[in-house]
């Protein structure tokens, strides 16, 4: 299907982009386009103006700044996959990247786009939540940062105000003693998951001192499994601890979407299986611990 007609403008700076957005009243920012253009092609959306932000240099680049990795919003998924800096400082992001769609989509899709859209079935919002990334927003006049815990509000709804551009993501660099796990269950390679999990844990010896468990495809946003976290925190992740965490998941995930092929009950079950398997991996597998 062909989209409804729209106008197109390229922005050279954030200020220019925001000004064009405000002047139009019915505009959308265009970055990778891998989610926006299908929506336009299906006529699910019909804005009057597309503002192409992919030429704004300030939105690029991956760099280590102190103890955090700053990833520019225009960083392509394929760049995250290939970056040695990400592999070392944000291994959970590197672990999630191969699961995102397909190679050609990864060549174009951007981290900023993924977090802005906040599709609850997407990998990167859940990883951002597991790492408590700080998400940088620019409205043309001021810059602010929102913690991931506060960023994802509701279905496709984030803390970004209309017109605000997500400019960068700051991820705390991996530290010794940390372990990470990522997995998802999808019908086919590259499909949106039926359930997915991203875990970042601080360990003191074999004891899980602090855990952040983010799950995706199991709610209107990526979901912190706080009850499961509580059941596991301070433990050695024994099988009995894991079983308690699995039981807690029912309350952690009160609003699981179901579709015609896989209902909510099945997804909750899958989420429990994922939790069990990935926590066990955190406990047992040497590769869960970065070098």
């Amino acid at each position, binding site marked *: *299907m*062909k*989209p*409804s*007609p*729209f*106008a*197109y403008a390229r922005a050279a700076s954030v200020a220019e982009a925001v000004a064009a957005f405000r002047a139009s009243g019915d505009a959308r920012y*265009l970055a990778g*386009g*891998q989610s926006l*253009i*299908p929506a*336009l*092609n*299906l006529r699910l959306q019909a804005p*009057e103006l*597309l503002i*192409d932000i*992919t030429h704004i240099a300030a939105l690029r680049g991956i760099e280590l700044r102190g103890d955090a990795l700053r990833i520019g919003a225009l960083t392509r998924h*394929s760049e995250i996959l290939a970056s040695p800096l990400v592999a070392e400082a944000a291994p959970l992001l590197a672990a999630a990247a*191969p699961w995102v*769609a*397909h*190679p*050609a*989509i990864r*060549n*174009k899709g951007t981290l900023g786009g993924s977090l802005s859209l906040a599709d609850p079935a997407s990998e990167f919002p859940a990883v951002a939540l597991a790492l408590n990334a700080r998400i940088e927003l620019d409205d043309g006049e001021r810059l602010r940062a929102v913690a991931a815990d506060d960023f994802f509000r509701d279905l496709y709804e984030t803390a970004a105000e209309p017109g605000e551009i997500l400019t960068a993501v700051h991820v705390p660099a991996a530290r010794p003693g940390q372990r990470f796990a990522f997995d998802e269950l999808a019908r*086919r*390679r*590259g499909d949106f998951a039926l359930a997915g999990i991203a875990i970042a844990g601080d360990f003191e010896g074999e004891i899980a001192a602090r855990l952040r468990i983010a799950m995706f495809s199991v709610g209107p946003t990526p979901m912190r499994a706080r009850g499961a976290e509580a059941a596991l925190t301070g433990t050695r992740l024994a099988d009995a601890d894991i079983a308690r965490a699995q039981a807690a998941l029912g309350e952690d995930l009160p609003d699981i979407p179901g579709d015609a092929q896989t209902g909510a009950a099945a997804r909750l079950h899958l989420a429990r299986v994922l939790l069990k398997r990935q926590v066990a991996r955190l406990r047992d597998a040497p590769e869960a611990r970065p070098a």
Partner: protein
Amino acid sequence: MSSRLRVEMIVNGEPAEAFVEPRTSLADCLRHHLRLTGTHVGCEMGACGACLVMQDDVVSHACLTLAVQAGGSRIETVEGLSERGALADLQAAFHERNALQCGFCTSGMLMTAHELLRREPLPSRERIRDALSGNYCRCTGYEAIVDAIETTARRRASAQAPA
């Protein structure tokens, strides 16, 4: 709103120009304005891989790119890659192995294979299938395509190996 914009790109090594509505996809621009019909349209949502082209040296869905977005880009289609010989060994392997039937997915498959072998010169069969995860084929069942890509990788490796 439907007024046309002039787009300039380098297509298959040569300057190309089209006068298109902003909503015109790169796929439609290549096919109908520039008459490069080797790139195909299968879904217009990035799910099938029929429309893959090289844009600034990476494989990309032409159906998910606006022609106006591609202004200033270097685009290579199957015709261009074919004419400069970049796909010759892949094409030969596909042909020998009958890794195509109707041919509609084939240019997309060649694009994916082309990029895969540049990034991973000797991929396993599993890695090949993984790279093909976004390329839909209804005719072949994929195995012959995996075979042809694997064969090409092996031939390239032995061509480079010291005698």
